[in-house]
């Protein structure tokens, strides 16, 4: 059977292709001799940063080309135009994938911007860092669009391989090697379960499209076991309790900006694929109702344990890692509702909107961690933040905005994100209790988010600590994330509308 590619096929993979081309361009550009010499890891390599940011901007623009992923999603008539199956069902061109892709692309751009100065201060500024971010970013965008089991598996493995390497990118750190090894072993272990689940779904239906998850089959038992294993695999990838043990170690060992990238981008594409899976499974009616209850239990345990474990962390990266686990718990609430599909099919939109908020506040927080630590592990402890507000008022302000947003304070986009998710849960009926648990868990979380803020503003500094400063990329990142965090609180409605239209492109 000949495959005739049409313009929709090219429009669908355009953002991913641009990201991958950017990754290769960065690797090639790194080979050239610059003013700082050949491959000097202590230079800022701003030409690589520029190539990366321009590539991200191009990929973002590619979402809006005619018949592109997000083209027409802003239109008033509800469902985004141009949602169609491309590449024989391997991918789908729709606004849902486009929305997730937009978040991933912005995350790639911000990570690149904030990394140059930080990596150079460590003497570890190698072009491979940006290459891995963009090659992995391409795979992530493909995962957000993937609609059959093979493309989901290949995309999830490709992106995982890049983040395993990023986790151990500081080769001289013992912690980096340890974190990368733990991440790799548990990640590959979870891929095994994901793959086994996919094999069972294929065995039960003879198909690999996601729609097969909803088909009636001669063997619903095999089907449900397969679905369960797939969900376990995704549970590992998003770091849901009890599959979370790799998260704090991987984040602590990774470069701070890479940890921000891992936290945001991996979560965005994994949740996008997870929502596609649960929507397909939930619409069919073959999936057992017990799977919905299990997902809800997963959400409760993740929210509660993630926040409780974060309470007594003294290392800021570990604290943010446990906070990331807790946020996975909040994000599982819309997943549960999307699986149930009641009372209206728009409930999954909460997850998309929340991921936008999560992008801004998490990248902001990890950028400040990168600035303060300056590559030194000892400066990732909370004491390093004592008196920061006096020396670096802007950095302290950016950190405060990010942390308050993570805690869900009004005035920041984190508040709107939590409000959307909890409101959907309240109106859902049977899952009202998820909203209660979520609200209680976020009240607990305020304690540990306030600790660095108190340290920055009310404690005397012990010793003077130099931070990565006067680096345009880092400062620009902080300006963008703090501005975005506050501005989206006031004009979050249009982004929320777009997320609702995006989710409608898959739930119909």
């Amino acid at each position: 059977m000949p495959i005739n590619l049409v313009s929709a096929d090219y429009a669908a993979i355009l953002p991913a292709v641009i990201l991958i081309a950017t990754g290769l361009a960065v690797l090639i550009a790194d080979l050239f001799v610059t003013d700082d010499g050949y491959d000097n890891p202590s230079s800022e390599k701003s030409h690589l940063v520029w190539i990366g940011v321009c590539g991200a901007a191009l990929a973002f623009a590619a979402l809006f080309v005619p018949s592109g992923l997000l083209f027409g999603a802003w239109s008033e008539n509800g469902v985004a135009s141009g949602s169609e199956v491309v590449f024989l069902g391997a991918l789908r061109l729709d606004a849902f994938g486009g929305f997730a892709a937009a978040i991933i692309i912005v995350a790639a751009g911000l990570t690149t911007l904030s990394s140059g100065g930080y990596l150079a201060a460590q003497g570890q500024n190698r072009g491979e860092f940006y290459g891995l971010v963009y090659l992995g970013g391409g795979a992530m965008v493909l995962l957000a669009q993937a609609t059959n089991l093979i493309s989901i598996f290949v995309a999830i493995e490709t992106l995982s391989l890049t983040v395993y390497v990023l986790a151990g990118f500081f080769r001289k750190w013992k912690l980096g090697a340890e974190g990368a090894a733990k991440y790799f072993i548990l990640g590959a272990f979870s891929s095994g379960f994901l793959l086994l689940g996919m094999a069972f779904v294929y065995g039960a239906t003879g198909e690999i499209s996601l729609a097969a998850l909803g088909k009636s089959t001669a063997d619903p038992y095999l089907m449900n076991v397969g679905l369960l294993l797939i969900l376990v695999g995704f549970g590992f990838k998003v770091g849901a309790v009890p599959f979370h043990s790799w998260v704090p170690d991987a984040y602590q060992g990774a470069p701070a900006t890479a940890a921000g990238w891992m936290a945001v981008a991996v979560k965005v594409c994994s949740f996008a694929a997870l929502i596609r899976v649960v929507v397909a499974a939930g619409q069919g009616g073959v999936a057992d109702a017990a799977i919905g209850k299990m997902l809800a239990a997963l959400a409760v345990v993740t929210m509660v344990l993630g926040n409780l474990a974060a309470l007594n962390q003294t290392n800021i990266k570990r604290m943010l890692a446990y906070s990331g686990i807790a946020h996975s718990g909040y994000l599982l609430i819309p997943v549960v509702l999307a699986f149930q599909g009641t009372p209206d099919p728009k409930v999954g939109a909460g997850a998309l909107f929340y991921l936008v908020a999560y992008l801004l506040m998490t990248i902001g927080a990890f950028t400040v961690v990168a600035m303060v630590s300056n590559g030194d592990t000892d400066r990732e402890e909370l004491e390093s933040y004592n008196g920061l507000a006096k020396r670096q008022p802007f950095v302290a302000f950016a950190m405060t905005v990010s942390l308050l947003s993570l805690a869900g304070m009004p005035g920041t986009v984190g508040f709107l994100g939590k409000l959307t998710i909890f409101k959907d849960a309240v109106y859902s009926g049977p899952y009202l209790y998820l909203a209660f648990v979520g609200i209680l868990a976020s009240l607990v979380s305020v304690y540990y988010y306030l600790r660095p803020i108190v340290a920055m503003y009310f404690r005397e500094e012990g010793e003077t600590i130099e931070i990565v400063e006067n680096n345009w990329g880092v400062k620009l990142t902080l300006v963008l994330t703090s501005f975005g965090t506050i501005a989206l609180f006031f004009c979050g409605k249009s982004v929320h509308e777009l997320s609702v239209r995006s989710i409608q492109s898959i739930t119909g």
Partner: protein
Amino acid sequence: MFSLTSCLYISAFLFSTGVYGVLGRRNILVVLMSLELMLNAVNLALVAFGRAYAAQDLAAAHTGQIFALMVIAVAAAEAAVGLSIVLLVWRRWQSIDVRDLCRMHG
């Protein structure tokens, strides 16, 4: 000829062996081998399912075989990254015992 059921039993046995190896063994290289064993156990299941579909639906049968080929390619890439991480661990820790990798906790 083997029946589908007997192939799946072998696949389940191999997968369980892999899971035991990842959870129970201390040497990272053995853990890596066990991870490969898990993926290849699933490959066996995929091919067996494909074989079972061959009688009724050729397209469905081919899907399983192609899936298995993709998994083999992914497993090769995974082994490359895994071995380089093991090398890094050896250089930093002078050990490839997973129980020595416990500086971070809590």
